[in-house]
């Protein structure tokens, strides 16, 4: 029975490699990463000044309780910002929900094995998840979830004219990807230029220039 099943479904059995084999492979890959100058996950330092710091850390030796507690603390502190960023990048709230869960599950795993991550780490993972999301499905013409909600607002909910707000949203949606990403990090996640730079992998100067170009372009197009 087993032979027959394996012969038919050999690719699936690849996923059933025993943990010991995976650990071997992971160790080898760790070695390769070191040789290429890419520090593996376990050696990551906290990225930004706003990283959560815990006096007791969340190392594996302290067990799941500490890891879960710290992950929960991370969630309470930063989930709002991460979700806002995701809503500015993904077309539906439920998509943002799924990705948010993925991001903090990754954070939970991170807590259990190494240093506690910070908001920069969380947003970096979120960016990667957004990229994965759009790789898995065709690009959609839908507005991001938060844009769609804002466009549906009535003028009584803010001091701006509704048409003006909708025009801004429409123009933002036409910006280049990196500019939209930077704006989302700035206005949704409330990051400053140094943090955005760390997340985007750019210098601070380049990041400020990116934001500046985006804002100046919007201003120019709205003025026409």
């Amino acid at each position, binding site marked *: 029975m087993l032979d027959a099943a394996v012969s038919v*479904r050999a690719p699936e059995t690849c996923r059933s490699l025993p943990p010991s084999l995976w650990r071997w492979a992971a160790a080898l890959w760790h070695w390769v990463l070191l040789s290429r100058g890419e520090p593996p996950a376990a050696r990551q330092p906290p990225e930004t000044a706003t990283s959560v710091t815990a006096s007791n850390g969340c190392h594996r030796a302290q067990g799941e309780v500490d890891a879960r507690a710290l992950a929960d603390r991370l969630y309470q502190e930063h989930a709002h910002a991460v979700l806002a960023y995701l809503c500015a990048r993904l077309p539906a*709230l439920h998509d*943002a929900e799924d990705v948010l869960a993925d991001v903090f599950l990754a954070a939970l795993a991170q807590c259990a094995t190494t240093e506690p991550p910070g908001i920069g780490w969380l947003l970096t993972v979120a960016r990667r998840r957004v990229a994965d999301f759009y790789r898995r499905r065709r690009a959609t013409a839908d507005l991001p979830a938060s844009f769609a909600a804002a466009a549906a607002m009535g003028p009584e909910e803010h001091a701006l004219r509704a048409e003006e707000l909708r025009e801004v949203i429409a123009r933002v949606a036409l910006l280049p990807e990196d500019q939209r990403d930077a704006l989302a990090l700035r206005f949704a996640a409330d990051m400053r230029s140094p943090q955005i730079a760390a*997340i985007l992998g750019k210098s601070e100067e380049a990041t400020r220039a990116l934001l500046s170009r985006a804002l100046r372009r919007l201003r120019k197009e*709205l003025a026409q």
Partner: protein
Amino acid sequence: MSAPEHDSQHEPNEPFAAPALDHEIVSFLALPPAAVGADSDSDARLIHALAIAHRLPDGADAVLHRVRARLSAAPSPVDADDGDDLGDFSAGEGLASLPPHWSSARHGSRATAAMRTLAAGLVIALLAGGYLALLRSRGTEQVPPPQARGWRDASITTARTSHPLDFHSSDGISYAVATTGGTVYACGSGHLWYSTDGGATYQSFTPELPPPPAIEQPLPSGATLDRCVIVTVPGLPGVFAFERVIGLGQDLPRAIGYATPGSNRWQDIPMTPNAQSVNPPPSQGILLDPYSIAQQLAYDGTAQASQGWLYLPLHQQNNTPSTQVPNLLLIGTPDFGGSWYWIDSTLFRQHALSCARVVVQPDDARRIACEVDNGDGTHSIWLTTDRGASWVSLPAPSIAPAHLAAITSRGVYATTDPTPEASGGLLLRLPDLTAGWRLVAPFPSPAAALAAGTEREVAVGRDGAVYVAQRVSDEASTTVQVDMLPKGASRFVSVAPARRFTPARGGVAFGGLDGQTPTVYLGAAVSFKGSVAPLERLALVPSSLPSPVYTPVPTVAPTAEPPTPRPQCAKVPITLAANRPGGLGAPVSTFPAVWGQPKANPGGREIFTLAGGTLTLDAPAGDGRASGMTYTVYPNVTLSLAQAQSLARQLMPTDAREIYIGAPVVHPIAHAYCSGGLWAAFPPGTYDFTMGTFEVDYYTRTDGKSVDHFTIALAMLG
């Protein structure tokens, strides 16, 4: 590009110039919303518009709440013992999502790094290839994906049989499937058969069902005797058989016994008055009569067995103080009824809780999990690892209320109601008490054909695979869908899509989960009368594989020494001679000769005086036999409990036998008895279907010792 973009860091009046951008944005956002009107600075309006556009939409709070709940129920990040139970979330995704832009000093040249990469790749490929080769040669413990070949008829009427059937199938057939071993039992018109190949062939069961006892009275018109109530219990390979009288308004089953194919005889389930608790004090007040036990075994389907122990939740009559005995208690026997233990006595005494649903670990009879009703509409799950000496409450999953499903060496399994994330609910596992609940997998949503009211059966195989059958029935049809979660998988896979059967079939049963051929049966459940609908079978491996070899297990009690069969109420000779003149069951006319002339006759009740008290008789009109009596002690007379019991004995039939231990010496004290003489005096259909059982209640005075009065009355027990 719509316009040439240039760095404006040297433009002094440009608020969006790069060097001061952070400061300018903060300044704009600091403006009160009311100040950002139509006539305000366009840059301020732009910044405010961007802030509004990037706000969280409605519903974000609910999302944050749900995701937090998902995280709480997520698999433990520390316990990476087997790498399964990942649910919706695959392992290693955190690593894959790490920022890609790390830069640090290189270790060696690019050529060296390339060589290391190549070497590592080769080693990984060799290891993986070796592992695959190992799989091909030796197999793996992991369950391959299910390969069901569809439902097929497993009825005895369509199967090959060792000799012609000795009953007519139109009278109805009862089926039972042993989860342990996978044997299928079929019974029609009092004739029992069995199949060890999933219903392809049936053989006549030996030992044959014993003939009805000679003590049976002629059944009243319209009543029939059903001797095909057959039941299996998880953990036991054999079958329990019961009989019952249908048509008298009562449906009390009477145990025939337990047997496995090829054994020598039917094993009785003796009742004993010496029930005891696993912990002191003794379980006084527990009612253990054959009918309660039989009813629980035959109808409730809640009994479990493991390593020779048989457990079952037992309903109690409300004839004892509630602080002494709960209405529902978990009892267990290690010797097939020779002695019974009150398993959840500690849980009841310490927490005023009792088990409503119980599961026992198949390979460790000491590990028992039970779901209790907290009394406030909620449920909780408790676990004992020492057969009831101590209990611990399992944590409640934060995501949704959990319901007990199974317990194995891998932990306790529970199911949840539908959640926003899983319309079919979730399957959770608690590996140990130090860990939190882990998400195993979301249950598959029932197909559209399965309307509201779907019942779900979950079973966990010894190999760790999980099976779920979802079923919905109406009067005309039954629709069922089967899914399976192989060990190590994170999602259920469909084994058999929803299929509608007509006419309606009975319940779902799983067979062969102990390492045999996993099989799902539809139509194997206790019903009030054997069904004429066929038994359906769904094997989860190719049917071309050899069937498991079945070795008949001789019928032996789980202990080395089978307990001596004890007389049961139903098996004592039924004879009027057992009734003493002037006693219970005797004609009222015999009383004066024993107790003297009645002192009064108010309302047709005879009152005699004897031994410092008065005896008041009850007799059903037209029968003339004493069906009950009350003895009241004169106020100036002191009668001890022992004296009262002795007096009561003189009023009982000579064959009266106590069938459960009495309640503690508090008010009232209840003792139950059975008697063939009483059965003869009041046979079924003539007065009450008591099967010869009656009860004596002693009411003490305020001193708690002397008796004020006692009553003797027919009682329908169980």
